[in-house]
């Protein structure tokens, strides 16, 4: 009954204002709200911060105790490179990272798929995963030593556990978000269950799985320090811990910078993987 045709008085009766009869352009009111990349600013900010910091350290404004000068950290890093220790630490850490992360991610994807696909797995495992996820791995270190020994076992296990849970969550979330009409399409064409999982569910969940990988990789890197708390002679984490216990802040910063760069490299690699696997998103 009511409809637009009941409208009236929508426009005020046209008492013409003081405005002129001349032509005037429409006022511009668009633009903004879309940050554009500005080149060079990023590196410049980095350089500026480091320069200021160095200047502060040299002039004594920043006490050496509070923060070593960047040049000192860089010296510590150079020493690491020259003495060949860098590679030793890095290779030990990378090995743990790769093994732990690969296993954790693979298991996580498998369990995540199970939770995403089967009611029983979801009902049984999801509460378990939710309860275990927030446990800090560092708290479990003493038990890990008993369970997996002081060798590589406990270190790999720490990273494995750390990357397992976020991958599970990301994967099952990804499976849940796969467009159900695509699944119904597959069924309507008589595709087998396994075909649907392989050709529709898995690629559809891939964006979420990859962003889970991104998270689990950075968690893995963060856990390196915790993992190498136990009986590690070599490893970036062990190096940082040693530097910390000696209050060798220059070495500490060098180690932290190595981890940070490692994080950026891994994230860049996953970005490449995404661009390749998700090229269809354009």
């Amino acid at each position: 009954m009511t409809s637009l045709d009941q409208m009236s008085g929508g426009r005020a009766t046209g008492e013409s204002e003081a405005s002129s009869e001349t032509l005037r352009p429409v006022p511009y009111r668009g633009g903004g709200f879309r940050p554009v990349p500005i080149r060079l600013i990023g590196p410049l900010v980095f350089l500026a911060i480091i320069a200021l910091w160095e200047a502060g350290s040299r002039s004594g404004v920043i006490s050496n105790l509070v923060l070593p000068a960047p040049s000192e950290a860089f010296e510590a890093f150079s020493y690491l490179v020259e003495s060949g220790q860098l590679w030793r630490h890095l290779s030990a850490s990378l090995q743990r990272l790769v093994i732990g992360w690969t296993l954790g991610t693979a298991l996580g994807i498998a369990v995540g798929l199970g939770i995403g696909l089967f009611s029983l797995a979801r009902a049984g495992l999801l509460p378990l995963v939710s309860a275990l996820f927030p446990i800090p791995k560092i708290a479990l270190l003493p038990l890990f030593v008993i369970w997996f020994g002081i060798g590589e076992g406990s270190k790999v296990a720490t990273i494995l556990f750390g990357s397992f849970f976020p991958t599970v969550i990301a994967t099952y979330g990804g499976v849940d978000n796969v467009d159900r009409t695509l699944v119904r399409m597959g069924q309507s064409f008589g595709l087998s269950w396994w075909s649907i999982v392989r050709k529709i569910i898995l690629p559809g969940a891939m964006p979420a799985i990859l962003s889970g990988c991104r998270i689990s990789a950075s968690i893995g890197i963060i856990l390196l320090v915790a993992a190498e708390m136990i009986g590690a002679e070599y490893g970036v984490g062990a190096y940082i811990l040693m530097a910390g216990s000696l209050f060798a802040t220059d070495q500490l910063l060098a180690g932290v910078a190595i981890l940070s760069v490692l994080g950026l490299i891994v994230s860049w690699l996953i970005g490449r993987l995404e661009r390749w696997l998700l090229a269809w998103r354009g």
Partner: protein
Amino acid sequence: MDLLLRGITHRYGATEVLSGIDLAVSEGEIVCIIGPSGCGKSTLLRFIGGLERPDEGEVLLSGPVPSGSLNPLTYVFQDFALLPWRSVEANVSLVLEDHPLSAAEREEIVADVLERTGLSDFRKALPRQLSGGMKQRVAIARALSVRPAVMLMDEPLSALDSQTRELLMDDLVALWQRERFTACYVTHNLAEAVRLGHRIVVLSRRPGRIRTIVEIDRDLGAREAGDPKLDAVQRELWQLLRDEARAADREIADDVA
């Protein structure tokens, strides 16, 4: 208040989108703009509303702004553009909040436009609870609340199913008969164009140029489905557009990485 477009030309990067558009829209007139996909209709409308600036040419206004108009150039969007977290009345009130109105005045305007669009029962509803047709009615109520001089409508009905579209077309006709609003109405739909347009501007494929302007002098209220004259205009427009529509359809999007 009249609108005047002079020599509008625009490029996005290397692709020319619009080329030399000249057009005048006079008060109380509905000008429909049709053309194949991607010919720059929405871009043109953004220029008219001042949301973007053309590379060349200018959009001019003449004549006094009607007194009491809070927002002379007001859009109605294809996808409604309602804030999903605001109720119907709060969505309308949103566009009044930045104007110097007392709470009571605002309240009164909101109640008035909701009443006039038959939405009084839906004041407290959230957008997700409404059908597409009702959502677009809310968007129209919102547009009316700022007392526009010119309504800029970008395919306002094309997100709706065809039955709802019919209903809303009737409503728009009735609205125009009362209010005689000025409008630029962009659409793909030739039936809508011949139903609602006093003049129909046909754009060519990208870069959009004005190919022709068809005037329909039948009164909006008197236009009915099955009217042979309107059918003839519509067929004629379709003849004009068919090949370009097919070509636009078969266009492959550049691989933007």
